[in-house]
């Protein structure tokens, strides 16, 4: 199923950061087992202010400033979940989540499986990710492929203010662990959202723009870039659809394949490097399932296979409108 391109009559306008904050607050108000923990999430409200005011409202027992140790934070959350709580963990930046990978991969992702369902892990791990904010080294990684290739995790990444609210609520409500990747360069962009709207299940892609020529398949921080590229492409005579995956795991094969089959041409766009990236998986899946509907190979537009560059050079690395349109041009239109 796809959702409408623009939500009808939003109840309020907010930044993505505010929508995430509201989602946390609403979840904590509704469910006393929801606990927030992380670095600087208390008095400061998090370095991006996503947890602003939570300790003031719920106290340090519910929104906990932890020692500075990511494995300890997530490992503590595992124990809290074993006891029956529903922890939400904030990792301060994408690359700072790596010390917690062992806890995430060996315990959070596997605990349900290794206990035959007896110890579920309803943990949400919020991670600001991606570049484009001028961050110095270790502050801009697109780390989604690590998580998406780990069985047992759901991987969610919103690209609109409404999804930031709705998908975070759905993630916290999930009885499975969710790696919730927040595109940090979109934190301050404002749009409408309706907290009273029904929470959509995770695992569904959304068609953000209809088109007749080809589809750009993307997610998170690359969505605005793709929408801009589609706008520019009109002058070149291409009418591009833009599909926002919203959830990498579980992957919405159904919607992706339906759109690709109807158009026959697809480009996958993401910030992370291409080799072993989610785009490789998506291109392979689409090719396996839609081969006879394809007029051209599925192409990928990604960051380069390099360590994330210094901020003054990052614009060369990040997929931009031109790189996307170059790929569209290579979709064998002459055939």
């Amino acid at each position, binding site marked *: 199923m796809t959702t409408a391109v623009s939500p009808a009559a939003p109840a309020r306008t907010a930044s993505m950061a505010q929508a995430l904050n509201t989602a946390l607050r609403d979840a904590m108000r509704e469910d006393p087992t929801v606990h927030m923990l992380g670095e600087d999430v208390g008095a400061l409200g998090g370095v991006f202010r996503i947890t602003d005011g939570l300790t003031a409202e719920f*106290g*340090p*027992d519910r929104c*906990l400033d*932890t*020692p500075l*140790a990511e*494995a*300890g934070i*997530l*490992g*503590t*959350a*595992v*124990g*809290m*979940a*074993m*006891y*029956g*709580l529903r*922890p939400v963990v904030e990792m301060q930046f994408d690359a700072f989540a790596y*010390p917690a990978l*062992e*806890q995430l991969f*060996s*315990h959070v992702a*596997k*605990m*349900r*499986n*290794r*206990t*035959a*369902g*007896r*110890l*579920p892990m309803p943990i949400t791990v919020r991670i600001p990710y991606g570049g484009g904010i001028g961050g110095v080294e270790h502050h801009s990684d697109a780390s989604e492929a690590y998580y998406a290739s780990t*069985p*047992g995790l*759901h991987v969610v990444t919103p690209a609109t203010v409404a999804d930031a609210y709705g998908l975070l609520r759905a993630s916290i409500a*999930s*009885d*499975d662990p969710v790696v919730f990747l927040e595109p940090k360069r979109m934190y301050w962009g404002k749009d409408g959202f309706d907290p009273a709207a029904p929470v959509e299940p995770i*695992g569904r892609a959304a068609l953000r723009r209809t088109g007749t020529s080809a589809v750009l398949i993307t997610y998170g921080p690359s969505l605005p870039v793709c929408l801009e590229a589609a706008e520019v492409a009109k002058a070149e005579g291409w009418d591009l659809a833009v599909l926002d995956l919203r959830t990498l*795991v*579980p*992957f919405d*094969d*159904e919607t992706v394949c339906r759109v690709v089959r109807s158009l026959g041409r697809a480009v996958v766009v993401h910030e992370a490097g291409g080799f072993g990236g989610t785009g490789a998986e998506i291109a392979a899946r689409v090719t396996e399932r839609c081969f006879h509907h394809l007029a051209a190979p599925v192409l990928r537009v990604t960051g380069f296979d390099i360590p994330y560059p210094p901020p003054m050079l990052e614009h060369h690395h990040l997929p931009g409108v031109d790189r996307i349109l170059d790929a569209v041009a290579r979709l064998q239109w002459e055939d």
Partner: protein
Amino acid sequence: MTVLDHRHHTAVPGWLPGATAPRTDPAPLLPDPAPVRVLGTPALEKYDPVLLRELYRRLVVGRRYNQQATTLTKQGRLAVYPASTGQEACQVAAALVLEERDWLFPSYRDTLAVVSRGVDPLEALTLLRGNAHTGYDPRATRTAPLCTPLATQGPHAVGLAHAARLSGEPAVALAMLGDGGTSEGDFHEALNFAAVLQAPVVFLVQNNGYAISVPLSAQSAAPTLAHKAVGYGMPGRLVDGNDAPAVHAVLAEAVERARTGGGPTLVEALTYRVEAHTNADDATRYRTGAEVEAWREHDPILLMERALRELRVLDDELVRDAAEEAEALAARMRAEFHAEPELDPMSLFAHVYAEPTPQLREQAAQLAEELAAEAEVQP
């Protein structure tokens, strides 16, 4: 009012506001100058004979359990068995010191503690047999799954204990670790979190001398592993890990402190891994037979028998009963582990997520087809 009120800044006299002057007098946190011992000392006479007899019984049964599991491994009935032979005092004391409402967080070498806590051996050993990761219901006996990645269960114990404290339940978590595990980052993070949160946790480090082949001298330069506690602001205790009443007493004190809001304790128990690391290990490559023999003289059951006989707490009847119980357990293990386990390949997809993803449904269907094809070939 919250349980975390203790974290508020307190002014340090003579220092600037917010300054980090010493906050704690380290002296009361320092571990015992020598390992605490009870067996062979006058202190033993103050112990409840019922407890001593129970410890003895569990030691004897535990030793037989270790021997039988080792034999089953040599017969190919277990995939691997990291024995706790020689460490039974720590294993049974850890199990006995906890109440039903408490939680045990064992490592892979602690199946005896798990069995001693009441988990059926057939269920406790599925991990090492290879038929299931965790064969028991962790909630039923409040026993966490056996943890293989070293020290990673430490933060789990802290989180669970913290959650229990928040809920007002006076439950304690006991995490079992080894000397090698103390080098891991998760050990450090667990102890630090536990102390900062004042979580009701007890960390029991069984220092058995070796992390597979690497001796403690290559693992740590700390005066003792118990000294590490001081750096976190919690008390450290040092105990003879082969002296079952001593281990029990030191753990009981730590559990009581945790339960009554006194925060965490680190206990180092000095013991020895009499067997190799696992059946796949060759211990003669890194330690001498003389060393092993010396520890066999300091065997936990030997020490216990000698002291309890002297105290006239141990009689022939108890010796016979314990031996019979041990043999009955061994016989049951032989019978049960010689039977082939029931395996359901389709269970592979059952608990990856609460509900299988569409992709896993497809893969489950593929496996079902493969199984059907196999069944046609071999009806």
